[in-house]
């Protein structure tokens, strides 16, 4: 599915804990061997580390700064959308951080939404729903989107037996508006394959395995790497890229900047190969410093590729993520 382009990103902000920890220390703390092969594959030197309960403070900080940058206050926000991936302070969906943010920001004219299951692609899901809601409703002019992810304690190396990534902590926020003049959302394409719904899950902590709630080892994010390797991630991204280009009348050959998550160097190379995109030193620097911070990667990388005038007015930016084979998304922006 794709969104018509009439809404843009007015402002973004990211908030990361000040502490970083080397990947070597993280692996050692979790009792995982760090080989040279793994080091090269991950391309991550350190991760940002906060308290497990820091998510709401980081989200609030990012949201406040994004609103300030947009010249808005809480009461200007009509919709708050959560694209967090990891567990929150209380159990979702009974509770959602978006409602707490609404209170803290005094966004009394807003209502809240949040989306589950998309992994990093929840960025695209949130963007798509918010953009369409703004486009479809003349009373809904401004949306605040946010994600706040802090790793489960002792669960930064995903997975210990075959490391796919290392998780850092952080939060991000975006202000969407019908009045934005840059970073206009030309289109978002999304597709899901339910066969891969369980590639990325936390086995415990909900109704499944309730009889084993003393098994703290089940309350760990896991990626089924065998299943993931069978997912046609590159082909799906290519298909979505072609679809968003066709629907928006754009040429992918003129896209100036490509933005992908910081899952690993190997994953970045796979994503770039889809469009023969050059490596971005700014994105590599983010990955090396912070590791993978779920959908916040995409916001941070968007900021980095357009920082210091690196992005000219009218440049096209493509943001892509494969969502572990389950939900893939591609968004095309015009700076």
């Amino acid at each position, binding site marked *: 599915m794709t969104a*018509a382009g009439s809404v843009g990103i007015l402002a973004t902000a990211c908030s990361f804990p000040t502490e970083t920890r080397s990947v070597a220390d993280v692996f050692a703390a979790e009792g995982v061997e760090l080989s040279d092969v793994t080091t090269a594959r991950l391309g991550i030197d350190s991760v940002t580390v906060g308290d497990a309960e820091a998510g709401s403070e980081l989200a609030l900080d990012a949201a406040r700064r994004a609103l300030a940058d947009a010249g808005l206050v809480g009461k200007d926000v009509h919709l708050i959308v959560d694209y967090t991936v990891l567990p929150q302070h209380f*159990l979702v*969906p009974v509770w959602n951080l978006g409602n707490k943010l609404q209170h803290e920001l005094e966004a009394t004219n807003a209502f*809240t939404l949040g*989306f*589950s299951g998309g992994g990093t692609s929840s960025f695209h899901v949130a963007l798509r729903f918010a953009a369409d809601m703004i486009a479809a409703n003349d009373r809904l002019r401004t949306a605040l989107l946010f994600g706040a992810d802090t790793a489960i304690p002792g669960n930064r190396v995903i997975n210990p037996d075959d490391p796919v990534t290392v998780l850092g902590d952080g939060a991000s926020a975006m202000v969407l508006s019908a009045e934005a003049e840059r970073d206009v959302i030309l289109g978002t394409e999304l597709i899901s394959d339910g066969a891969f719904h369980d590639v*990325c899950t936390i086995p415990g*902590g*909900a*109704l499944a395995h309730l009889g084993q709630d003393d098994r703290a080892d089940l309350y760990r994010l896991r990626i089924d790497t065998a299943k993931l390797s069978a997912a046609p991630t590159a082909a799906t991204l290519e298909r979505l890229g072609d679809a968003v280009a066709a629907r928006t009348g754009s040429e992918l050959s003129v896209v100036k900047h490509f933005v992908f998550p910081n899952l690993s160097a190997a994953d970045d190379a796979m994503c770039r190969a889809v469009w023969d995109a050059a490596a971005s030193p700014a994105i590599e620097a983010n990955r090396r410093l912070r590791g993978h911070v779920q959908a916040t990667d995409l916001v941070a990388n968007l900021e980095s590729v357009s920082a210091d005038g690196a992005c000219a007015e009218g440049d096209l930016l493509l943001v892509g993520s494969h969502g572990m084979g389950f939900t893939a998304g591609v968004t095309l922006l015009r700076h």
Partner: protein
Amino acid sequence: MDGQIGILAEAYYLPPTRASIDEVFGVEDVPTDALAGGLDFRRDIGIESIHVAGEETASGLSVKAAKLAVERAAIDPSEIDLIVGFTSIAEDFVAPTWSAAGVVQHELGASRAFVTSNNTGGCASYHATLSAVCAVMASSDSINTALLFAGDKAPPLNHAYYPVTVVCDGGSALILRKGHPRRVILAVEAATVGKLHDVLYAPGYPHRDPTDPCANRWLHMTGDYQRFNEEVIPVNLFMFRKVMRAAMKRAGVQPDEIDHYIYPTFSSWDQRAFCEGMKIDPDKVYTRGLGPHGHLQETDMVLNHVDAEADGTIGDGDLVMLTTNGAGFAWGATILRQ
């Protein structure tokens, strides 16, 4: 709404096993204190029995309801462009990392759909999700058919939400189609009061107390009922009025034109308070589901609408207001032309 979107079909699934309200109270820790106005939670709630899922999973309840809705719609699942879950209590796996939408897509064979789940709104997630899905459908030429679903299975020993309700297990689904001339969605409104975010919640695994004799209490609905009484109750009818009036204004209808109200089946006293507070004729509020199944979270909206159609209460051309509140705290109102 811009452009006509109608409910092509809707269905619910209730697991066959039932438990009487006495059986629920017999095994769950339910206080016996009298409620305000001398009400007795056990005696006066008006719920006779509930359905319990037993070995069935929460996502399995969703799948069964979704299959029923697809069957009633007489469509091929590959026609579905968008699937969105709106379950509001604990699922098979932890959200927001996981969503049952993938299971529903896979089991239906809805191969071309994009799927996700909304995780806000509590029982009002029906309205928040409907609002979001209608906007996507209205904004896109390629989204013509959408499936919304929910599947709720209360954790063990957590069917009684004292002093509010007793909850039933089950699933529901509705299929929206652009241009469908029946059950046309005229307006959807949702509102959230964020300061009440922690009045009702489930703590989650990190808050587990290994010494608690109730093994799964970390998954139970947990309420601060002093705040519920002091902060939710005083704004409840105001917020209902706010979303209902906004929906009526958007739909261009007057209160006396509403033929029927679909309202949650929490308790007899809650239904009475809604009718009295909102000055609505109780005969217009569909309450028959309260006795046989109690409260089924966000599925109340679907279940009671389906039943009100099936027993002839709601007929073609009627104007129907579906409205509820939910943890978060959230309120929602939807107006349909049958």
